[in-house]
């Protein structure tokens, strides 16, 4: 019993000494490093500042709309939405053209 324990211990020591396995915890995992930099509070604060800048622009846009009484029909959002509705070259037209081509040629 004691003999087999001593043998196992000797084997463990032999493997530990000769094995090239070195524990380098600080460099082992790139994900940990990525996570470390993402979790820095300044990183979060900079994202927050970007959000605040967007919010400031939104408030300014709202106030501009409240004040503006001149060009109600030139809003780009409305115009874009309308132009999409005017898309003549839609899929149905293309399909009909194909059918007509088949009949003609």
């Amino acid at each position, binding site marked *: 019993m004691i003999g087999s324990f001593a043998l196992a211990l000797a084997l463990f020591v032999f493997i530990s000494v000769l094995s090239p396995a070195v524990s380098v915890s600080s460099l082992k995992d790139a994900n940990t*490093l990525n996570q470390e930099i993402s979790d820095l509070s300044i990183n979060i*604060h900079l994202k927050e500042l*970007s959000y605040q800048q967007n919010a*400031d622009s939104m408030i300014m846009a*709202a106030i501009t709309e409240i004040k503006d*009484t001149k060009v109600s029909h030139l809003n780009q959002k409305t115009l874009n939405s309308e132009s999409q509705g005017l898309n003549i070259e839609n899929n149905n037209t293309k399909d009909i053209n194909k059918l007509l081509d088949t009949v003609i040629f």
Partner: protein
Amino acid sequence: MRAISFFIIFSFLLGMCFSLPARAQSDTTKKALESVKESVTTLINIKDEENPNDIVFRIETFKKVIDFSIAEAKDLKIKLFGIDAKKVGTSTIAWKNRMMKNIDTALEYYDSEKNFIKEREASLTLVEIKTRAESFKEWRESKYIPTADEINNFFLVEQQKQALETTRKRAEKIRLDIEKLKWAKIKTAELEKLFSKVDPMIKDAEELNDKADFLFYTTKILQQPLKEEVTDEINTDGTINTTTSTATDKIEKNPELSIKDLVKESFAKVKNIYQIFIDMSSLVRKLL
């Protein structure tokens, strides 16, 4: 002008999609901003339809803007409350109190606007709401935004100090790991070559943040002008040109902008340092 408004709304939506929601923005603030966005869209459509009651929607949008501004100012106040009096000096506490006062003044102004609209809603004319909105915009730009920028700059500088501390600690751990690898007879030449770039980069990042800290502490916390610096230049004919400049001139004319830029530049260096660490990590995996 309306095209610009639309562009801003679109950019805002795009920005929301690609940036993570900020932790310090409370849910109330986020919801309030969503309401502003919805009100603006409705107002644009109502105006396009030439709805004679568009004033109702203008008032509604203005109310939403005020609600958002209140929520935003309260968030900023909570942030200020978070400054630990035990960790900062008396001058910083005095600065914090000044900022608190500014936020309270903003909240009082927003409340008075909210009450005015509530009391006069039924009788408000188009001219009145337009004038009110214009004054609100001017007030926000001249009073609230500078205070918000100043508070945000304080936190930026402090958080970059923490980021640099984390970077230094990580670099020290990596230094020890390189020693371990050397001891294990593993070739570390490439790792050491990469690591040799780290120390000067940390130093540069620290210098940038120190500059930002100095600028903020002097001009905002102590409310003092930066000291003048006299430099002599000897001309080829032996005469001396004496020029006087301040550190502000050297860095930038707008201190708010330069503090933020200095911290951002310092943080960019921290990110580059971490990229080196990540490259070293890949190299270590190949070596072991």
